[in-house]
């Protein structure tokens, strides 16, 4: 089984730029989708899939592989892009996002797409699933770790806190949650719609090991995941400070870009901005 790929941070940053271009191209081709949260989570997914998770695209169902649950299923384009980049399926498939018969369903469907560890789309459910996977690892004596990416708006779902309670109760230290803490949800900012703060204190109060870091700094993310892995006796959560729509100036921090497809001019400008950073 392949382990961490030993890529340098500049190499990982280059992957992030590629993923951002892929995400925008996919959503543009589909005519709909969720660019804001997808762009927000790019570094988190890159750190996991290229730096942290023990996975093998040649053996996607390996029983001891690390698991990833995308609880915020609407950022499927970001997950598909990273899976393609990692070699789970050909990049050409990305262009079929949201089209009839495509493995790239609007929200992830594990029955259709290689490399998915669970289907998702109804918010609030992923952390419970990740807990169950972590519990199964303990029961079977398996060494895999389970990761679960949640949106910060998603923390408004009550089930997240049920899962936070039970994962801590059962001391699931092989479980690592990540909150994409970008402060923006579909209808506006989390502060205006339904305040979730203080986020870190809430997880601490639920007996989780809490690690806060810059969600776009790959070095910080990699060390956060390593710190999580070395914490014993309790689950860990990484509060990743992110910018919704990261990398495209007019999408950044804008609720309007939660789930909207750019027009031609907007798309060209977005691509140009990302390409520019490559230089």
């Amino acid at each position, binding site marked *: 089984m392949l382990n961490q790929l030993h890529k340098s941070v500049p190499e990982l940053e280059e992957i992030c730029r590629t993923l951002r271009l892929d995400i925008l191209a996919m959503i543009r081709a589909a005519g709909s989708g969720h660019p804001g949260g997808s762009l927000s989570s790019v570094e988190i997914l890159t750190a996991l899939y290229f730096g942290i998770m023990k996975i093998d695209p040649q053996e996607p169902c390996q029983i001891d592989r690390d698991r990833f649950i995308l609880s915020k299923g609407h950022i499927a384009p970001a997950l598909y892009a990273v899976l393609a980049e990692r070699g789970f399926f050909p990049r050409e498939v990305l262009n079929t996002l949201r089209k009839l018969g495509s493995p790239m369903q609007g929200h992830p469907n594990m*029955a259709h797409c290689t490399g998915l560890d669970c289907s998702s789309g109804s918010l609030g459910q992923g952390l419970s699933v990740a807990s169950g996977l972590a519990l199964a690892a303990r*029961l079977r004596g398996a060494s895999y770790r389970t990761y679960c990416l949640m949106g910060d708006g998603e923390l408004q779902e009550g089930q997240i806190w049920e899962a936070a309670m039970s994962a801590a109760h059962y001391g699931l230290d092989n479980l690592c949650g990540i909150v994409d803490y970008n402060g923006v949800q579909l209808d506006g900012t989390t502060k205006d719609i339904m305040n979730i703060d203080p986020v870190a204190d809430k997880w601490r109060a639920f007996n989780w090991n809490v690690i806060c870091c810059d969600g776009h700094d790959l070095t910080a993310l990699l060390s956060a995941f390593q710190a999580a892995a070395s914490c014993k006796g309790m689950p860990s959560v990484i509060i990743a400070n992110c910018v919704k729509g990261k990398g495209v100036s007019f999408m950044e921090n804008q609720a309007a870009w939660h789930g909207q497809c750019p027009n031609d001019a907007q798309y060209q400008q977005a691509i140009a901005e990302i390409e520019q950073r490559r230089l």
Partner: protein
Amino acid sequence: MNTKPARDGFGEGLLALCQERADVVVLDADVSKSTRTNWIGDRFPKQFFNMGISEQDMVGTASGLALGGMVPFVATYGVFLSGRAWDQIRTTVCYNNLPVKFGGAHAGISVGPDGATHQALEDIAITRVLPNMTVLAPCDAEEVRKATIAAAACPGPVYIRFGREPVPVITDEKSPFEIGKAVWLKTGSDVAIIACGAMVYQALQAADQLAKESIHATVVNLHTIKPMDRDSVIRAASTCGCVVTAEEHQIAGGMGSAVAETLAAACPVPIEFVGIHDSFGESGQPDELMEKYGLSAAVIISASKRALQRKQNAAT
């Protein structure tokens, strides 16, 4: 006749499974004494997880356990299991076709004094509409035991509903039980009574009474509501020319509706429905409630006579 709470069969089935299989795990939401999963907690503590009062997390955790190679049984009152966690059952369990098994305890109005909040009268309707789901309503404790064991061998999700109160044990170890295969308990040619759960015994009582009036009923125990045993149901309807369905559940969407969906397309005969008529239950003794809400042999008898009359009217 020997009576026994159907839920005891669930506990016995789980004990048998846990004895044999290390991959079976049992989760409960703080009602383990009621569902009998405390028997697993006592005997096989490593295979038992109390998730506290959090049905949604319990179902999600069970999904993860299933993804990790385990065969989880989750149990709580049927009303909270099927209702409170319906989206979790739909989108995480059924959409992924995971082998999560649901023990819907305290099903039906016979829960009694706890009243309407605790009486699951909609669970068949809301579980049978889910793709990939198997829905079982066994007739007595022994059949619940068999259904529990059979559910573990089933590749996808299975919902088993069973009641709280002692009900007559009308099957034994040797009685046939196969998921998806209805059991013919009596064969007559005047009216087919198709029943599930505790109403199977009432159907047999009704058939005995009807026989005294020279009305000969077929009685079918339709313990599997989904997938429907179409052959049996169509054969019963075509043999008798009219049908009565009987269930401890809302008429809307329940077992009778499932039978009607099948027969409307394949063998349209008069059907009379015995069940709850679009109302909530209330507190009371189980037998009082069954009587008041029309879940008795007497009501099946009058429904049978109505069905028979409609059949005869159609013939003339």
